[in-house]
């Protein structure tokens, strides 16, 4: 008997369950593929343009961001995202997609109040928590080095 009180648990059987294992495998493969492409780019920048292992990071990330932004513009990245979930959301390409998609979406409201204001609507939280956690980790490291 479905009642208001037991509704949430009674209707669980009608809701399709998230396919956790399948999603994890897909995320692992796509996320791994993106990282492998990144590694390939790093080798490319070291071999062809004479970057060092340390300095090749910047052009690699920039290239991945460019690719993700172009795929977002062509309407492909959201389809990759639906397939791969965290696999395409966690790497830097997902961050680029969140910015490019918000910028595209708000183009109709103008460059300043539309694109510029809304670009970091989704990415803003990543930046906030990135900065805060970097600060906390830096503080812990400083204390450990000072007193241990």
């Amino acid at each position: 008997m479905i009642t208001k009180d037991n509704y949430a648990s009674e209707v669980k059987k009608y809701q399709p369950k998230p396919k956790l294992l399948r999603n994890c495998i897909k995320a692992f493969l796509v996320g791994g593929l993106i990282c492998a492409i990144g590694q390939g780019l790093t080798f490319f920048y070291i071999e062809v343009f004479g970057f060092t292992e340390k300095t090749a990071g910047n052009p690699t990330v920039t290239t991945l961001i460019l690719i993700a932004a172009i795929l977002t513009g062509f309407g492909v990245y959201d389809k990759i995202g639906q397939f791969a979930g965290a696999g395409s959301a966690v790497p830097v390409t997902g961050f680029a997609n969140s910015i490019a998609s918000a910028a595209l979406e708000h183009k109709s409201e103008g460059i300043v109040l539309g694109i510029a204001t809304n670009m970091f609507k989704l990415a803003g939280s990543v930046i906030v928590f990135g900065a805060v956690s970097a600060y906390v980790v830096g503080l812990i490291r400083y204390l450990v080095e000072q007193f241990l």
Partner: protein
Amino acid sequence: MKIGKNSWQFNQGVYIQSSATVTGPKEKQGPLGETFDYSFEDLHCEASTWEGAEQALLTKSIDICMGKTNMREDAIDLFISGDLLNQNVTSNYVARNIESPFLCVFGACSTSMEALAIGSSLVDSGNCKNVLASTSSHYSTAERQFRYPTEYGGQKPDTATTTVTGAGTLLINNEPSDIQIEGATIGRVIDYGMNDPLDMGSAMAPAAADTIVQHLKDFGRDPSDYDLILTGDLSSVGSPIVKKMTEQSGYDMEGIHRDCGLMVYQANQQVFSGGSGCACSAVVTYGYIIQQLKQNKLKKVLVVATGALLSPTIVQQKETIPCIAHGVVLQRVDV
């Protein structure tokens, strides 16, 4: 005339004179693609913004609806319309170009039947002669208002629905035609504590069940008195729940119930658990169902459009989702 507790019976005779449905490309590729009057080839609908595209859909449906009659626009006594966007901008902006008085309504995805029930009541009472009742929704305007930018690569769960891009318009008055609007049941706001905006089928099913059961009680009927009981956008998640809940109240809808959200797309169109949005019930009912009634393949249909009355802000504040459903009876009459 009031009948039972929450229902109206239109005794003076309210009839559908003309109907029009307009959709986007994805709906055209669906199983009912041939039943729509017009389908735009891409989501932009020849407009430069998504909001403009939705206005183009609504305007087109009104033009086609009026074009099917020889009535002049100034004969319309009232235009009733609503949509999903903040401040109902689609309806309000389209109404700028319409001469007649205008009532704007909001019932989320139940708007189609809300507008039709109010319009029918006004025709029945004699306050209006000719009424236009419309509604619209657009995938991209709904995505950006309720969810994420359309190109954002977030993963959605299988319980999510796909907003139908489309608009539907009906012209009703008291001159006999082959489809009569017999009555309506106005829904109550029902909240069973669901709070996932990506599972609106589960949230809306209790509201649909409440309105269906109340309707059958008010009119003293059984589901078998209808050829079809059609819900708006409960999807593959909410549909079995509403059947279970009405059965629990003693009304078995097996073989009689269908859901517009499951009719408008094919399973292989990647629409998650089905279609949703104001236009979902409108394009199915004002297109396919009306054609079936005209061809005498259906005689009596109860259309129950379902709406989830949420906003993104209030969901983020951890509130639950109140829902509503309004029912309207369409029946074939021989004139």
